[in-house]
């Protein structure tokens, strides 16, 4: 009896592999349910945070909306689940969320043993240092003997130790549990240096510092923190949808298509633009989506540049430069694979 079940299961696997075109369990479940369950940060300024009326905003949040638009042409078809750092992986593994868009760093172990598939990077971050201008420090190499404020139990703390050891410098760590208190300790003068991800430093400088111009972020970036949306193993079609939704926003920026001017491009003669906007069909069908999927995403959520500027860019209180997140044509790392 048992072997019979096994044989049936094996047959199902083989059959599934042969037919191929069948949608995976997650994509089917999402389509059947009618909305995307998206795991976001419970409160990270500019990436995932509720505003004063309780609406979710942020760069990670907008990618949840983009996926919802690609599937349902409706940015409200998302159920946001705020997740703590400890909760996020069990939540995606158990199927509580379909998509984890919660400033998660891509690493080998997360890709393998945690069982995630990472979509393209939506924000390239890295650890940096901020000091008071009065110190006159120009480079992190001059920080020998400095007192450094750092948040406890993070990779930040480990990177800091590695950096000072590999440069034969000494430092006094002031290790504090909560991010707010780390900032408060730094501004109260308990330490010379504040270290965390560069985006966090810029945000703290612009949004928390009593006088932002008193503080300077040093040029050295000592770690790589590529942040990307993730899905769980076991549904390649769903992974494809998320992956190409991100690429579509980057590609749109490369071509200068924005949420405001997208309608002018619909009748474009450029075959690349025709493929993306669904004027010449095929891309949507290949993904199992409507042919207008990318058009809808750009129209409703915008291209990568618009998403960036709206949530974390120079006009927001966070005032982040594009930096590594500029397009490859502008010296950054954002590079979309060809949509064809």
């Amino acid at each position: 009896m048992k072997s019979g079940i096994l044989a049936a299961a094996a047959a199902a696997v083989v059959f599934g592999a042969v037919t191929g075109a069948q949608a995976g369990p997650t994509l089917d479940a999402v389509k059947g349910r009618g909305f995307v369950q998206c795991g976001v940060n419970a409160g990270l300024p500019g990436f995932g945070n509720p505003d004063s009326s309780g609406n979710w905003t942020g760069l990670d949040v907008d990618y949840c909306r983009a996926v919802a638009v690609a599937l349902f042409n409706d940015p409200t078809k998302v159920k946001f689940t705020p997740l703590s750092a400890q909760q996020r992986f069990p939540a995606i593994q158990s199927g509580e969320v379909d998509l984890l868009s919660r400033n998660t760093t891509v690493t080998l172990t997360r890709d393998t043993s945690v069982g995630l598939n990472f979509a393209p990077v939506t924000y390239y971050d890295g650890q940096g240092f901020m000091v008071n201008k009065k110190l006159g420090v120009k480079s992190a190499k001059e920080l020998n003997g400095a007192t450094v404020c750092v948040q406890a139990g993070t990779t930040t703390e480990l990177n800091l130790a590695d950096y000072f050891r590999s440069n034969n410098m000494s430092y006094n760590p002031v290790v504090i549990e909560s991010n707010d208190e780390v900032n408060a300790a730094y501004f109260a003068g308990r330490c010379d240096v504040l270290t965390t991800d560069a985006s966090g430093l810029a945000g703290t400088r612009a949004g928390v510092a009593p006088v932002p111009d008193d503080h300077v972020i040093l040029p050295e970036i000592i770690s790589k923190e590529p942040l990307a949306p993730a899905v769980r193993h076991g549904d390649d079609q769903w992974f494809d949808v998320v992956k190409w939704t991100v690429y579509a926003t980057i590609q749109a920026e490369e071509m200068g298509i924005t949420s405001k001017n997208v309608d002018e491009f619909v009748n474009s003669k450029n075959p690349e633009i025709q493929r993306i906007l669904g004027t010449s069909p095929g891309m949507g069908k290949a993904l199992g989506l409507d042919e207008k999927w990318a058009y809808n995403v750009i129209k409703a959520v915008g291209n990568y540049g618009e998403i960036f500027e709206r949530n974390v860019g120079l006009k927001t209180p966070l005032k982040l430069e594009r930096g590594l997140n500029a397009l490859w044509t502008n010296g950054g790392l954002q590079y979309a694979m060809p949509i064809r």
Partner: protein
Amino acid sequence: MTDNVHTGSIPDERPPANTVGPVAWLRNNLFNTWYNALLTILIAWLLVKAIPPLLDWLIFSANSFGTPPQVCRQQGGACWTFVSEKLRFVMFGTFPYDEQWRPLVTIVIIIALVLMSCDRRFWKPWLGLMWVGGLTAVGVLMWGGVLGLTYVENTLWGGLPLTLMLSVIGLSVAFPASILLALGRRSQLPAIRVMSVTYIELIRGVPLISLLFMASVMFPLFLPTGVNFDKLLRAQIAFIMFAAAYMAEAIRGGLQAIPKGQYEAADALGLNYWQAMRKIILPQALAISIPPLVNTFISFFKDTSLVIIIGLYDLLGTAKAALSDPAWRGFYREAYLFIGVIYWVFCYSMSKYSQKLERDLRRGHRR
């Protein structure tokens, strides 16, 4: 010969200056020994150091409502605009903005139910019905989906209603369970005793935070993919289990304090076990247990803020999330002070009420 006898009364002498009046009070209470004098001076110095800057921040250089955040940051001083701007989010979380009268009514209903239950005149059977009716109304208001109210998923609930629901529902379910557990622990039947002891010691042996992690993180991994148990319900069950174990120990303390003669008297009257417990033992034991029970209530009310680690927005969670709005970062003093006052009002009322209840119920024991 009477002219050397004083007639009439002698006018009252003023008592010696060092026994009455403010100077005497100071001498007797603050400077009566050298170490008390030293402590007084030290504390006075600390107060002088701390109070003026605090008042200055709170009131004198505080920014009035409506001051934009950039101005607040430059001025220093408390920024009460933060509280007015974020008030609705902190109180109600991500509940749909236009529907936030529903959680407001929920808060009123829950507080009204609790206040009614505090008055001994209302301790009648119909109070139970009021609770059933009240909690049904709360459910209808929060979930909606009937009577023309739009449906609101419980993942969107947050703020004060969530804190109140977790603690009030948690305590009212855990309380009867804890009585049974306490009785079970003192039972003559070995199976029941062993089960109660195991349960109580197991739950008391792990921190609440690990129970919450088990409920929210481990539990779903045992279920097949896609099968989901409601997150709020899992947290609520974890709280009930935790509170029941702690309250059971408080009640056991009360049970053990009842003299053996009371049990024997109940037996002599021919009462069976449940009659004896209900009419003689428990009323006395619960009255004795009030201080430790209220202690548990208060700590439990504050423990609900731990749900933040499983991604639920209770009152503390909404305050923290409000601080993550890019435009309103750095006003954590205002945020934590505001919710601190809310927590304090609730906890202090509980503590005051328990003192009153203790006095009322102990009347029979006064000598």
